């Protein structure tokens, strides 16, 4: 299982550079200097304490949603549903955050996180169970579930859980006791995310559960032969992924947004796909990938203000990064062997 550490870093790094090159062309076409744009982007994101603080805050949900995708990739599942799981978790934790009054912080925060994890896992469980017992491909179910969760969350925030006496579709603000504080100016959630990365990395490497997940991901049939319950591991991986995505939503609610509002969490789960693949499905690799992308997200509006490039440039860059990191193009140019991640296991079976 030893891989050249160089190519594990080199290809993702090059993918980012090549994506920025093509993104730069798109910027230049609009008559704006791409080098200046990127300079502003990196300066804003990485070259000041405040900038880094915002970057890490933006990276926090991305690490977690990246992990949610990565752990499933390890089990041979493509969890496109981190978005829906994350929103489910965000709403559940917002509810727990405002509904329970008078709890001590040390109970209220874990409780709200638990709500987030549970409801994220619940959404993922539907996809996992359909995959395990009915053979329905998880890509389709998770995408459908994303849309369903978004619609249902919108309904809940607009009717039963709506903050009374104001026009917006949103829940009441969470209690102060549920607020996750900053530590030394850095968001505390970031450290939770790092802890999850390390824990998952350790789990995959050193536990029998990790071995089961990896085996199913690499060769489902051999896993079955070796006495591993493919169904159980499929559902377990989705549950783990879903609860981590739910925690991502919860941390976002409890430390940044302070309530649930439908437009708040858009895209965080989808960015997780790019983060996971840029991090090569490795729980530790997810961290730098998320910081990089978090930085881009953090500086989007400053870039627009200073250069006039619309912040959606980040969407484009992410798409290009995803393309170059998964396509064997760069590996071939470098004459390195590219390992295609194989996930397709047919539509129905």
């Amino acid at each position, binding site marked *: *299982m*030893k891989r050249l550490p160089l190519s594990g870093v080199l290809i993702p790094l090059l993918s980012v550079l090549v994506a920025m090159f093509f993104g730069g062309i798109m910027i230049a076409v609009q008559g704006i200097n791409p080098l200046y744009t990127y300079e502003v982007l990196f300066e804003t994101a990485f070259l000041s304490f405040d900038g880094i603080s915002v970057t890490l805050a933006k990276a926090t949900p991305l690490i977690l949603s990246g992990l949610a995708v990565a752990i499933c990739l390890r089990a041979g599942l493509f969890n496109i549903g981190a978005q829906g799981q994350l929103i489910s978790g965000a709403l559940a934790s917002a509810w727990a955050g405002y509904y329970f009054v008078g709890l001590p912080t040390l109970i209220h925060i874990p409780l709200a996180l638990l709500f987030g994890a549970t409801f994220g896992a619940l959404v993922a469980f539907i996809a996992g169970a359909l995959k395990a017992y009915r053979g329905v491909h998880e890509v389709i179910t998770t995408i459908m579930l994303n849309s369903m969760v978004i619609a249902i969350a919108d309904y809940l925030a607009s009717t039963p859980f709506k903050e009374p006496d104001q026009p917006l579709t949103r829940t009441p603000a969470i209690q102060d006791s549920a607020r996750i504080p900053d530590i030394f100016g850095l968001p505390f959630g970031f450290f939770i995310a790092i802890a999850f990365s390390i824990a998952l990395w350790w789990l995959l490497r*050193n*536990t*029998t*559960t*990790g*071995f089961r997940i*990896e*085996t199913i991901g*690499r*060769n489902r*049939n*051999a*896993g*079955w*032969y*070796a*006495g*591993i*319950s493919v169904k159980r591991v499929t559902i377990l991986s989705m549950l783990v992924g879903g609860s981590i995505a739910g925690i991502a939503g919860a941390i976002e609610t409890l430390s940044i947004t302070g309530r649930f509002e439908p437009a708040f969490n858009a895209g965080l789960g989808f960015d997780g796909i790019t983060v996971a693949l840029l991090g090569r499905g490795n729980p530790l690799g997810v961290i730098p990938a998320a910081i990089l992308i978090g930085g881009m997200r953090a500086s989007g509006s400053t870039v627009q203000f200073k250069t006039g490039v619309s912040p959606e440039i980040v969407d484009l860059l992410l798409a290009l990064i995803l393309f170059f990191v998964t396509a064997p193009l760069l590996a071939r140019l470098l004459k390195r062997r590219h390992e295609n991640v194989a996930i397709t296991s047919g539509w129905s079976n």
Partner: protein
Amino acid sequence: MTNLLEIEKVSKSFGQVKANDEISLEVAPGEIVALLGENGAGKSTLVKSVFGLVKPDSGVIRINGKVIEPGDTASAIANGIGMVHQHFQLVPVMSVTENLILGDEPRKLGVIQMKEARNAAKAISERYGLDVDPDAIIEDLPVGMAQRVEILKALRRDVKLLILDEPTAVLTPQETDELLDVLRNLAKRGVGILFITHKLREVMAVADRVVVLRNGKLVGTTSPKQSGEAQLAQMMVGREVVLRVEKSQAKPAAPALKVTDLQVLDDRKLEAVRGLSLEVRSGEILGVAGVEGNGQRELVEAICGMRNRVGGTVFIEGVELPNLSPRAAHDAGISHIPEDREKHGLVSSYSIADNLILNTFDKAPFAKGWIRNHDAIAKNGITLVASYDIRTPSPNLPASSLSGGNKQKTVVARELSQNKKVVVAAQPTRGVDVGSIEFIHNQLIAARDKGSAILLVSAELDEVLSLSDRIAVIYGGKIVATFDSKSADRAEIGRLMAGSNA
């Protein structure tokens, strides 16, 4: 006489392996040439080069003196080459007619003239006396019939040279004889025939000339008149062949594996095992002989918990095994050397060491509770690599770096080193080099002598005959006869395998 086919110094490498090394040979019209060699000798690669499925690295191939485009099937077909593949090149869900016309459809403005095609299919099948229903769906046909469709496909295109890649591997002895008749018939009509086999009996029966390959090189050309079976075998293997495995008298004890009235469905939900019963005692090898597709795969998978049993029971030392649980079967004392090592036996991206504990990963000493013990796994890897002669620089390399024989030895090492009560070995030497075959055979005998009950399922009758203490013949999902290996008669087993009641 001008030659129909001329192969001149054709070479082809796959990675480090030289599959063909400057091979030259000819086939004249109406001549039957047998291409003889072991698995991995390069026979398939050579004929695939002729048919354009493989592009040779160097060398020239001519048909009637005309050079054919390398690596281009269409050019080969246009020049009158037809091929019957080892794995049938038929679309299972389509009809015989559709398969026959594929790639050369009778059409008007792109629309297929189905009626015309169907009549033509019927006509050609009658002309050669092959008797195939043009409307039958391929997946419903018996193997011998499907092979006739393959031959018809070639004949339909007016072949001058017919290549057959191990055509008899899947046939009963009777079907084989019929096929050999068809081949003689075709040769009489002037068709040149090049056929691959590693079965000497067929070569002796039908070939005009024999070309022997070994390790990618041509080692000699002869004819059945000049050389006897033993000589051919020696050319093929490169040394004297011990046709019998050395083994002591078995000392069978109490029954360890007992299967009663087993019923199992195949992938298409058809009954493949129909009320089968058998018993294997500790310290003996029971060999199951049969033509492939008579329920062997389903039998093995049902015993090992990998396939649903719709009826019947499996007992290990009198204890009934639960259905559909590979884990329970393993825990109850079954080792399983699976038929398909790439699909079931190995995780090719895992290290050899991890593959050696693939189904014991959560047992002591490889795990302490929930935590894996990397030291114990590494130590086990080093020990087994040495004692089972797995040729690798390090057990930490991925299993994908191993050759076929060493992959199989990895599976065998894992399964036999566990000293289970029962060993189920399915096609344990398929696609494996001679050296590894010998080694695996000896390991199976050794496991028997240590007291394991061994159920050997193999499509190679010779393997069953030489390893087994008792032989059970499977046909149509049932055991039709059981013999003591000393009193077993090859011809009679052959008849039983073909379903005759004699």
